[in-house]
């Protein structure tokens, strides 16, 4: 009912409305982008682990991660052995430790024709390598220290660059600094592709598998010491017993994939908290901008509200007018802001649903912002005493 009325009022002071909308616009762009950045960082960091967890037969078979205490690299049994196993003393079930402990994932950069590399724990790599080798041979540590690897024949970078067995590719390999991979201090190395495998969707197809011991040397991992050890449990029903066994005999913490995932999520808490603080600050700033504009507007239109009250307008009608106006002011900047930030958001977030989710989240915030900021000016308008205002005309 009051939309036309509210629109007419907004037209009265276009400069003020434009400035307020600009403030809301900037705040909304920053809010949406901040939200998109945290969403993107978290998604990218957790995504490889989700791959392992999601739909992976290994997990349902009982997959666990052993991790060093306080990030120190402690020896466990001897990772240079071809195949490491522990036994459950009660039923003789076995768990296998893999020498290919780190699976470097190549993020191939098309423009630069080189990739960066990251480590990810994966169990039973040898098992898969052996069973899925379609061409060539498995990588080994050569005497001349040439880094060898196997690539996925179905991966996009193999297809796009027509990589075949015998080719060498350049890869940025990180150094391990304080237990973390640092790409800044990493170096470009050449990996000779000695075999082709087909992962069959078990892990990211853009992976290149290199021998752990060789990679550990390049990355400055202490030789023969593992940062992560993945355990493939052959008899999942004894998973817990095996975990206990590892705990008892080593200094490793044992994490299940679920625990690992939740631990990683916690690592983002700090960043998330910071972004939430930024979002709240931006929310408050834009709310104050709108509040200020609406209070000035109500103050200037005391007579108008007095007239409306004199002809019988109730408090709820005044509330409706003010909230409509606040909502319109908010929407002008916010709608443009949301769609402008789509450009930024799409840089960080891929897929239509996450973007729509972000936009939906922003719309909810904007509606709440409009409602909250409109309440006080509406209260002020309702409290206008018609007789006093009209008498002082």
């Amino acid at each position, binding site marked *: *009912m009051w939309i036309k009325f509210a629109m007419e009022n907004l037209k009265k002071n276009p400069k003020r409305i434009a400035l307020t909308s600009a403030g809301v616009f900037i705040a909304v762009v920053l809010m949406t982008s901040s939200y998109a950045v945290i969403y993107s960082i978290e998604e990218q960091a957790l995504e490889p682990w989700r791959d392992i967890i999601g739909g992976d037969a290994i997990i349902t078979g009982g997959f666990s991660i052993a991790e060093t205490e306080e990030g120190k690299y402690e020896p466990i049994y001897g990772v240079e052995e071809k195949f490491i196993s522990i036994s459950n003393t009660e039923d003789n079930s076995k768990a296998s430790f893999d020498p290919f402990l780190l699976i470097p994932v190549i993020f191939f950069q098309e423009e630069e024709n080189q990739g960066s590399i990251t480590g990810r724990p994966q169990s039973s790599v040898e098992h898969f390598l052996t069973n899925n080798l379609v061409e060539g041979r498995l990588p080994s540590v050569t005497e001349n220290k040439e880094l060898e690897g196997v690539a996925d024949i179905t991966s996009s970078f193999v297809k796009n660059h027509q990589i075949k067995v015998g080719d060498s590719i350049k890869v940025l390999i990180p150094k391990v600094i304080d237990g973390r991979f640092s790409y800044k201090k990493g170096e470009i190395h050449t990996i000779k592709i000695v075999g082709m495998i087909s992962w069959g969707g078990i892990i990211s197809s853009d992976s290149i598998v290199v021998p752990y011991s060789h990679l550990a040397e390049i990355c400055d991992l202490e030789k023969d010491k593992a940062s992560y050890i993945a355990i493939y449990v052959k008899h999942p029903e004894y998973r817990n017993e095996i975990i206990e066994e590892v705990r008892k005999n080593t200094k490793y913490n044992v994490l299940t994939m679920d625990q690992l995932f939740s631990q990683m999520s916690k690592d983002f808490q700090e960043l998330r908290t910071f972004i939430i603080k930024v979002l709240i600050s931006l929310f408050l700033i834009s709310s104050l901008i709108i509040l200020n504009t609406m209070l000035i507007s109500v103050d200037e239109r005391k007579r108008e509200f007095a007239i409306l009250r004199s002809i019988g*307008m109730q408090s709820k009608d005044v509330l409706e007018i003010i909230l409509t106006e606040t909502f319109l002011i908010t929407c002008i900047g916010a709608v443009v802001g949301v769609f402008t930030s789509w450009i930024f958001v799409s840089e960080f977030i891929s897929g239509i649903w996450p973007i729509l989710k972000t936009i939906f989240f922003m719309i909810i915030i904007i509606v709440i912002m409009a409602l909250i900021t409109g309440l006080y000016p509406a209260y002020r308008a309702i409290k206008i005493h018609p007789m006093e205002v009209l*008498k002082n005309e």
Partner: protein
Amino acid sequence: MNNIIETVDLTKIYTMGSEKIAAVDHVNLSVHRNEILTIVGPSGCGKSTLLGLIGGLDRPTSGHVVFEGKKLPSSEDKLAIFRRKNIGFVFQFYNLLPALSALDNVKLPLKLLKISDKETNKRSKELLKAVGLQNRFYHKPGELSGGEQQRVALARALITKPGLILADEPTGNLDSKSGHQILELIQQMNKNYSQTFVIATHDLNISKIADRSIHLLDGRIICSD
């Protein structure tokens, strides 16, 4: 019931610093249905305050107002509903909403009563025609003369067919010709629609159109004729 409105010991006291001023002082007044009553008195004698109290725009310090046998409600929103249904106000400075056209200004009270758009439009146009503004429907107040604005204000006051129209110095800001036209309209509306008018004025000439006049001084009725 012959009286549309009655005031019983109606008093309004304003406090200015330590001083208390009685703008309306124990006024007992009865307004007969369908009459034109003028409240005459000099500036500051309490005419506007009395109109505000009668119309439920203000609350008395003591005493009360009875409209068609019922005391006025005390809550702001109930008073708003009362004004919406029963009272039409005409002010000296027209008090039209500048952002709206003449037609939209007249429509406002009907919109508050949730009358359909079609009906609202029809009635508003008819009334604007009746006050001689058939060519000014879509003009905003700033584009109308003082007399025309007051006619729009009169149309707005009459649009809901209220029982009582309260007019505060309706000709006070108009030239004599426009003032005369407004008074003629008031007489015409009173006759055609049987509406009661209470007009506050300091212009004794307006009393000529009134059925009855009361004289106010320092918030008290000093005589009635």
